[in-house]
């Protein structure tokens, strides 16, 4: 009987779009937050983004979040577009930005050389993790990893888990050497760029994460059926938000509280999160990143 109830609960969990991982459910109603008073000297919050879309698109997507944070923190929030994941981390270290949205692998890399304070992990498409795909065009003759020999291949970013680290590991696990396998490789900067390059025939195949196909349909009305998945890589945690370690703790805590208060299940949360294709946020748990760390260690060792 107990087992049947457990199964029913499991079933329910699997069927809903609610986040399922490491999230205490039901979420306790946040106590009425005491009025936040910005510490002296805290005059603005600088949020760094990686250019996974054009500056205009990024600004449009983050507009509601920026406005909301600004209202809650009672200081202006400024968007800073970094060149890439590592550049965002470097800016954080130099104190040029306060808050960074970064990938799991970028976080694992940055952790090694800089002090930062992780706040929350994003939940999207109902999950705090996402798998990675190796993708070709639907009409491509390439059907297996071995077929990639001599192809032009596109990665996302050297600091991308699904877009670089795990595809490398997969190839190596299959006994394929990326250096000799491909005719050429390049970093496309973001997931959408990888898909577009495949779609347009600029590259034969590429690595991206599972969310990029629905994202492309949303942004460019390009149907996922234009692509074919030829391999999958393990799920990795989604992007997380970090602040620099020397940011006043009161601000970091206030930011965490604000992020955790956002949910796509209520109207206000949806207004802020929908442009970002995010459902909500999960309190940071470093154990979630152990898999990425292990994969990184394995790839670095080779």
């Amino acid at each position: 009987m107990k087992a049947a109830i457990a199964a029913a609960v499991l079933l329910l969990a699997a069927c809903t779009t609610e986040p399922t991982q490491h999230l205490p459910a039901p979420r306790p109603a946040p106590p009425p937050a005491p009025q936040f008073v910005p510490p002296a000297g805290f005059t603005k919050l600088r949020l760094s983004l990686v250019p996974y879309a054009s500056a205009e698109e990024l600004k449009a997507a983050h507009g509601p979040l920026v406005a909301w944070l600004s209202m809650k923190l009672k200081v202006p929030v400024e968007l800073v577009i970094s060149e890439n994941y590592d550049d965002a981390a470097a800016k954080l270290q130099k104190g040029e930005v306060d808050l960074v949205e970064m990938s799991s692998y970028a976080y694992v890399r940055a952790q090694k050389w800089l002090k930062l304070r992780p706040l929350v992990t994003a939940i999207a498409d109902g999950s705090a993790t996402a798998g990675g795909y190796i993708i070709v065009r639907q009409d491509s003759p390439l059907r297996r990893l071995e077929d990639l020999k001599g192809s032009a291949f596109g990665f996302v970013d050297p600091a991308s888990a699904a877009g670089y680290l795990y595809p490398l590991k997969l190839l190596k696990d299959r006994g394929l050497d990326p250096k000799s396998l491909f005719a050429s490789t390049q970093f496309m900067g973001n997931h959408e760029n990888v898909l577009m390059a495949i779609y347009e025939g600029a590259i034969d195949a590429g690595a991206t994460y599972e969310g990029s196909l629905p994202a492309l349909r949303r942004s460019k009305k390009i149907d996922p059926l234009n692509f074919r998945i030829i391999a999958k890589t393990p799920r990795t945690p989604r992007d997380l938000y970090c602040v620099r370690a020397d940011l006043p703790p009161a601000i970091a805590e206030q930011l965490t509280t604000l992020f955790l208060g956002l949910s796509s299940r209520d109207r206000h949360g949806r207004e802020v999160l929908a442009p970002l294709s995010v459902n909500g946020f999960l309190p940071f748990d470093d154990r979630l990143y152990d898999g990425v760390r292990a994969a990184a260690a394995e790839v670095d060792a080779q």
Partner: protein
Amino acid sequence: MVSLAFLAAEQQRRDEQFDMRRRNTQVLEAIGVTAAVSVAQNDIAALDTLVAHVFERTRGGELEKLTVVDGDGRVLADDAPERFGEIETDAFARSAIAADEPVWKREGNKLRIGVPAKSGLRWATVLAQYSLDQVNAQVERTRAQWLGFALALYAVVAMILYLGIERLVARPLKALQVAVRKMGEGSLNTRAPPLRGLEMRELSEMMNKMAATLQAERDNLEKSVADRTRELQEANARLERLAVTDGLTGVYNHRRFQEGLAAELLRSTRTGRPVSVLMADVDLFKKVNDAMGHPAGDELLRRLAQVLNSALRGTDLLARYGGEEFAALLPETSKTVAGQVAERMRAAVEAELNVDGRWTQKITISVGVATYPDDGKTGEQALIAADEALYVAKHQGRNRVVISRAVA
């Protein structure tokens, strides 16, 4: 009981496996519906999320593998993402893809279940593999519990039986045995202790009754044996007395005298000491008889025997030799001493029998004395010598002692 434990465990194994299969089939059918929606929408990301999260939530449980395959057996999603695109070729996967209903199969300690992923149409097939280890471990625990229970029950029953037999049978039997052994050894006054239990009590009562009867009978027997023995001894004594005494006078008879003489002569031969014999006769006894009648004669003889006996020494033997004649055997007595004894006899008769005037004449005796071996080489010769001396005494005037001089 032990086989019951195994049967119970086996029944539980069947129940648990049936329950596990039914429950998981239901879960997989529900997952199948969700998977079908994702496949129908070509939302592979959603399918991946579904499979990954279902698997992650049940990790550490029974579920070991979870796969969604298309109609060709191609893996659309798997708990191990790298398996994407592989073709499931095994017989079970094939049968699951072909079947329109959930199918299942047990392979060793694995349970495989396949259910169609339907949402309006059949879009895919969900394949799952479960470990039966937990079920089996539970069954083993149940079996162990049953076995333990059975063993404990055995122990308790054995203990009760042992104590019961010890108290109700062994101990009473032992008490009975001790009592019977004592009875067997002759202590018929032994009684078995009162025992518990109807049969035991009856047995001990019977035993006691038997012992009491035996004891009574033995007491009777002993008493009558003692009585008979005493009677016999008395009869024997009487017979013996009768055989060696004279009925009238109470002194020894002729036969006893001869035996005594023979014995003394043998002894004399060994020791070399002399044996003397006296022959005494009432003087003129016929006259007493004639004048006073036989009863008076008999009375005289009885009186005479008393007087003669009292005149003799303790070791001497007096016998009625026949008629009014008495003989005395004097062991280890010389002729001189024998003469003195004879004289004492004669004087006693003369003194004691004539004081009250009872008799019509004076009562005297004549005595002849002879000594072996001086007066004869045999007892008979000695007696003849004594008789001759008596004869001489009669002739010399009666009321006297004459000592044989055959050899002297």
